[in-house]
């Protein structure tokens, strides 16, 4: 669950040659941009995520697998590219960082019981401008979206970018958040940057067990789980991050 961030996210966009960790697993899932990792001693493949080519989404149809074969990275990228540009996505759609185009959440095959045929992919997207999630059924063979379903209630797990943004909002907040004072009490220094802690963020929906946070569900919210580098968890149960409004929601 824990992100090891050696570069704060804001500067990361510029730091194309930095090795940074993609944050969400204790297994320090490293996101290696250009650093050679040590092969030879490792069994099989590296557990790092790496940029595919130059990172651009493929716009040309890649080789397609059998109907029920797992998606290749190229197929996933091509499906995201088609889904994001579909006419059913609002023209002003934005991602969690406010940049143009919807936030990508996940992609996989439609369920076997849905009895689709051919190479089809479900791409889940989120538009922060309208706070709407989209399930886009993409036909890879035809290179087009065959069904678009939208909802203002579905809140799939956060993307890695959303987790980074949520952590930064919590650190930047002037609100009295228990985990920050707990960190300072125990570590002797204030918490000012994400790379001081490890974290993951789960999507969070109001379920009537808290007194506040009713807006979460229609707004997109994330619950942080933050630990020190030593793995001790900090108290983050008193708030969630509203990613739609970029604000802290005290839930108690």
């Amino acid at each position, binding site marked *: *669950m824990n992100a090891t961030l050696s570069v704060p996210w804001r500067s990361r966009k510029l730091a194309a040659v930095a090795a940074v960790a993609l944050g969400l697993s204790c*297994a320090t899932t490293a996101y290696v941009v250009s650093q*050679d990792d040590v092969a030879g001693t490792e069994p099989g493949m590296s557990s790092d995520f790496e940029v595919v080519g130059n990172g651009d989404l493929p716009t040309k149809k890649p080789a397609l697998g059998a109907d029920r074969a797992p998606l290749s990275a190229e197929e996933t990228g091509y499906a995201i590219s088609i889904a994001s540009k579909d006419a059913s996505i609002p023209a002003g759609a934005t991602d969690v960082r406010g940049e143009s185009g919807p936030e990508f959440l996940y*992609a996989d095959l439609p369920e076997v019981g849905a009895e689709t045929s051919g190479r089809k992919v479900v791409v889940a997207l989120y538009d922060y401008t309208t706070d709407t999630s*989209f399930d886009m059924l993409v036909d890879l063979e035809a290179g087009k979206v065959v069904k678009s379903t939208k909802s203002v209630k*579905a809140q*799939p797990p956060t993307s890695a970018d959303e987790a980074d943004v949520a952590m930064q909002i919590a650190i930047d907040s002037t609100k009295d958040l228990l985990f920050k004072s707990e960190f300072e*009490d125990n570590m002797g220094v204030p918490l000012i940057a994400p790379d001081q802690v490890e974290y993951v963020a789960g999507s969070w929906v109001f379920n009537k067990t808290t007194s506040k946070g009713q807006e979460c569900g229609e707004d997109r919210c994330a619950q942080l789980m933050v630990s020190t580098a030593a793995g001790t*968890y900090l108290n983050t*149960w008193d708030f969630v991050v509203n990613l739609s409004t970029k604000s802290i929601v005290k839930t108690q």
Partner: protein
Amino acid sequence: MKKGVGMRKKSLARLTAALAAPALLTGGVVAQVATASPAQAADSPLACDASLIEKKLENGAEWRMCARIHPVKGLILEQIEFKPATGDYEYSGFKRIIDQLNIAQLNVPYDTGHVQYDDITSYGFGKQYLQEQGPEVCKGEALPVEQSFTYSGRLVERTIPGICVQEDPTGIMTHAQETQIGGGTLYVDHGTGLAVSSISKISWYEYQQRVVFDDHGQIEVGLGATGDIAPAWASTNPNSFFHNNEKTGWPLSGPSQVTSGGSTQTIQSYAASHWHNAIFKVDFGIDKAERQVVEQYDFSSPGAGTRAPIIERQKTVMDAAFSSVAGVDHDELSWWRVMNPASKNFDGHARSYEIVNQNYANKTIPYTTPLVSFTNYRACEEYASNNLNAGCPGQNVLDYVANDNHQLTDPVAWINVGFHHTDKDEDQSPMPIHWQKFQLVPRDFFAQKPTIKDARKCINGPFSSVNAVTKPCTPENTAAPKITDKNDPTAAVVPAVGKTLTVSNGTWRSAAQSLTYAYTWFRNGEAVATGQDYTLTEADNNSVITAKVTASATGFPSGTVETAAVTFGTPPATEDPTDEPTDEPTDEPTDEPVVAVSSTTAVKVAAKVKTGKAFPVTVTVKSAKPVTGKVTVKFNGKSKSVTLVSGKGTVKFTAPKKLATYNVVASYAGTDTVKKSSKTVKVKVVR
């Protein structure tokens, strides 16, 4: 005699007592009972490329399915099909059991009431949460899993060994001793199961999803929790994982010092107890049914019998979607099965699978209260709560049941496997794995045990007693049949043209209540007539006459024995047949010594790479035998090697400054069983 089925070589260990049965000409042929199973030719392979798992277990049973890692659901198994060790005896080829099986929610509320997590719908078991199945983790074969998503606007990917497939022993499956005190035959076999598993890490908890498909057709679905209990500092705040409320936790140490607001105090802390509410989704597809039926069975006693309480079974056909709450809709003895009424085993019983779920449900949360729910399949209903599908978002299993007003014919089971964890000292880091499991058990999917041996094939329904010695399944001849003169049975046979011979049945022992007999007459070893009597003709002069008697009963293997010969005139001289094998015996095994088979090496690399950038080189080595060992890749004077996993390995190089075309040379060194191979490709370094 009906359609014969060839005898299979058995792995059953037969420990026969000293009292050996006499060596007889018993044929290994079974008279099979009514073959109700339609020979479905629909045994086409599953089209899922790299995610196909097809495995023959030690006893000959086979499973196949497609297995992949979904970004949210984690391990997802599709099109699960089974072929029993008895092969065509039950049905031909593979038969479908389940269309899809996966976890549909994992809700973890802490007893402190301060927090709960939905590990599936908030985090998921795929993406970066999936853990690598390195050789220290997976003792079997690890399947590569390719994962990709966008990060900071760029497409990223990784391929890791993510699904572990291995055959594990399951202990003794059968132990049947024929007699009370020694002697007779002991039937004992040891089973194995195909375990398909993956591990995902959500915060401090690490979960193993493990589904075991055993060699008798049973499926066990397990979720094991390991990793660590929630790590935290001791606190006087009851909203904490190590708090000071004895009732909602368990002490794991002595007192701790707690500092807050500048003052220090000593408290006893308690690790927070919690639930793991796991709900699995099982989309049944018994024999690819058009229509399936869900039945609930309950048991109750109408009163005492003469010497024991009478227990009666009550069947309820579940016509509509339902949720079942323990103590309200069912009790401890109740169970459910999913049946395909159109698919029958050779006894005429409809094939089904029973759900065995001996767990408890968390009744403090509405949607985790039912132990099981059934709905008709609906594509938008993917998760047991907080549904993520935009077609019916935010709903839970109770909504699905309430919204389903169709007859229940396409059942999906939502199986709730609860586990309440009160931590203990021994659960401290690293925490030993604790399991919550349910089973899917074949009920009349087969007419008999799907590993049935010939010596027990005659046992199907009521039987008196069967044992290998005095009442065998295959009739055994104890006194040979005899040819006599039809008109003077007591006299010695004096052959003459026109004389009628007859053959007796001989004496047989068998588990069958009665046997029927068939007779075949032979002249010099060539079959010439059937029937109990035979009248000699001119053609029989100067020949040897014998008869064979076959004893059989419906549902039993049959036995055949030959009479002593009657000689008519002077038979033609024949070479003495020899009882001995003509080949010299050899001390050496006749198997060929292990010969290495060829391999091919393929290299996947971008045609153009940018100077200064890292690029991956993926090498795939293929061979008819399993490919293991390392592959070495050379590029621009550098050499890297990587251990192959499923024949595949990836190394990375950085493109040099000099813009040119370079060779990438991949060399596989080979093993004792696979020959070496290599491949050279070109890569162009561009600006």
